């Protein structure tokens, strides 16, 4: 009687070896995917970009608020300019009267 051939793993069946190989391959694929994602550093960069955006948001809102106030002030200046325009048109008569007085 010949001795049995040495097996790679004692007492393990072919089916067990096959299932181990399949699970090892699937684990390798998963590890490879995660390594690719980690190597791209996309999480770090995107996180940093989001943080910078959040920090700038307050400044942007303040700038927008200031611009809106400036627009309102400009409108008020326009109203004042129209009122001044109306009133300075009377100054010519005033000047003629004063000239006559001072003669």
């Amino acid at each position, binding site marked *: *009687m010949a001795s049995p051939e040495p097996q790679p793993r004692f007492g393990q069946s072919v089916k067990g070896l096959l299932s181990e190989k399949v699970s090892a391959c699937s684990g390798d694929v*998963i590890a490879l995917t995660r390594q690719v994602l980690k190597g791209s550093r996309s999480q770090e960069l995107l996180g940093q970009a*989001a943080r910078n955006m959040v920090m700038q948001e307050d400044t942007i809102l303040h700038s927008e608020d200031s611009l809106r106030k400036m*627009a309102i002030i400009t409108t008020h200046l326009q109203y004042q*300019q129209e009122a001044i325009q109306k009133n300075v048109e009377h100054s010519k008569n005033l000047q003629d009267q004063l000239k006559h007085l*001072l003669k």
Partner: protein
Amino acid sequence: MSARDRDRETTSMETSINNSSAGQALGPNSATDTAIFGQIRGSDPGTDADLYMPVPKKPGTHNESGVETAEEAVEPAEPDINELCRDMFDKMAVFLQGELTATCEDYKLVENMNKLTSLKYMEMKDISINISRNLKDLNQKYAGLQPYLDQISQVEEQVTALEQAAYKLDTYSKKLEAKFKKLEKR
């Protein structure tokens, strides 16, 4: 049948194969093979035997020499092994898709934030353009008001001169009044 029994039977099957390969030729008339694999077509023409039909036999039988032999009860081939494989690959694909989708969602988030910020900046740009146009018009109108402002300055100077003349007249009239009263007393 439990996994332990299956492993034992597989080991025994391999042992019997090794035994057969050592000194015996594998043939249809091999008692061991027949025991393992069941009836083989052609060996008993009188029987209705399928080719290598696995026949589960009672394990642990004793032959006449008293040596215990284990007989393999081969498991029937799983009919849905393809389905299981397909299921495994589908789930693997879903898992990998999920891993990649997380990064895609991060990119979409940053993209949306950028779009909103660009919209905000466009609004601010429109407001700034309006302010700039209005201020240019205002500057032009104020430039058109400049002659009037010069006239107002002249009016102010003339009014100041008139005021000085009025003060002089007032002083002269008071002197004149005092002289008149003096002359009246005489």
